């Protein structure tokens, strides 16, 4: 892993640490009486705060996961570096698109 990717990996980890803690707390809160779509959507619908929170989360996790998968593919597979890079850029973009779509789904719809 080069220095630039190393710094992105650590920076996104530092950004996500508090987000993950809040998300785990939300998981526990959301499952207190069993999880329902009405409960989830009543909390998130029209909420700028949740949109910003999960939007930042999606951005950070897309970068973090793509770099992590890149490290694994580089070390554990014989794939050439250029192919690995293409795969993980695609993976990161798919995560970002699906993630932002999910945020929009629970905040806007």
């Amino acid at each position: 892993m080069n220095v630039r990717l190393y710094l992105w990996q650590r920076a996104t980890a530092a950004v996500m640490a508090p987000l993950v803690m809040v998300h785990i707390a939300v998981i526990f809160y959301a499952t207190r009486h069993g999880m329902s779509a009405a409960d989830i959507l009543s909390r998130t619908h029209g909420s700028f705060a949740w949109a910003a929170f999960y939007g930042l989360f999606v951005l950070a996790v897309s970068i973090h996961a793509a770099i992590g998968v890149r490290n694994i593919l580089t070390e554990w597979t014989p794939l050439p570096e250029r192919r690995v890079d293409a795969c993980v850029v695609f993976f990161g973009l798919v995560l970002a698109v699906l993630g932002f779509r999910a945020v929009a789904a629970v905040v806007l719809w």
Partner: protein
Amino acid sequence: MVTGRAIKHRDSALWLAAMVHRISGLALALFLPLHFLTLGLAIEGEARLESFLRWSDQPLVKAAEIGLVFLFTVHLLGGLRILVIENFDWRDGQKQLATLAAALSAIVAFAFLVRVF
């Protein structure tokens, strides 16, 4: 050929901690697209998301969710351990810290188990 000497480091608790961090991260990376697709069901309406959530009430799915909560927590704590080691002047107690991360994750996952069953 892999010699005993070459894999001796695998007996180390810190090697195990690094491997747990890697495997949990990989598992979470594979789970994330499914998680996002599930939440995206809300685009088709609340009823569609609700229908999926009721499907996820099955014991096997709940068991998988408990596993995910464990992986999520252990990856968080393992990541915090790495950030602390790399950014602070702290060299002692790393094995204890790794063990603590695993133990805390097990407690969080167990608390989730009690909650969902």
